[in-house]
């Protein structure tokens, strides 16, 4: 049972990392135009908000799909 739990936690971590890789690519393209000598405060805010708004947007889509399904 402990082994099972260990495997589940590791799988969760793997999914988390896979998402972070995907988000980094997408938000890097949106927020970092020219990599400078340091990460500007504006760029950092953009990255954080990019992740948050992407999750909002996906959440909005999933909810809307549910509503459409109910209406049918």
């Amino acid at each position, binding site marked *: 049972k402990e082994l099972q739990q260990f495997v589940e936690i590791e799988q969760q971590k793997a999914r988390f990392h896979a998402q972070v890789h995907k988000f980094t690519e997408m938000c890097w393209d949106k927020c970092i135009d020219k990599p400078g000598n340091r990460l500007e405060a504006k760029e950092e805010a*953009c990255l954080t908000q990019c992740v948050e*708004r992407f999750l909002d*947007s*996906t959440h909005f*889509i999933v909810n809307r799909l549910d509503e459409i399904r109910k209406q049918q």
Partner: protein
Amino acid sequence: QMRQQMAVAHAQELLQKMSERCFVKCVVKPGTSLELSERQCVAKCMDRYMESWNVVSRAYANRIQTYSSDS
């Protein structure tokens, strides 16, 4: 059961591709919240994406049938 698993996998892929494309198109500068205009854009974008999926699916199915009936 296998059929269900596949339908789920298929819906997840649609959701994933749609989310990414509509986010990139509609949220140009991510702000402190998802604004109304951005949400409206995402709603339109997902409707059009799903319609496009159906149009593409029909066109591809027609093409496969035409070939099969030719040979």
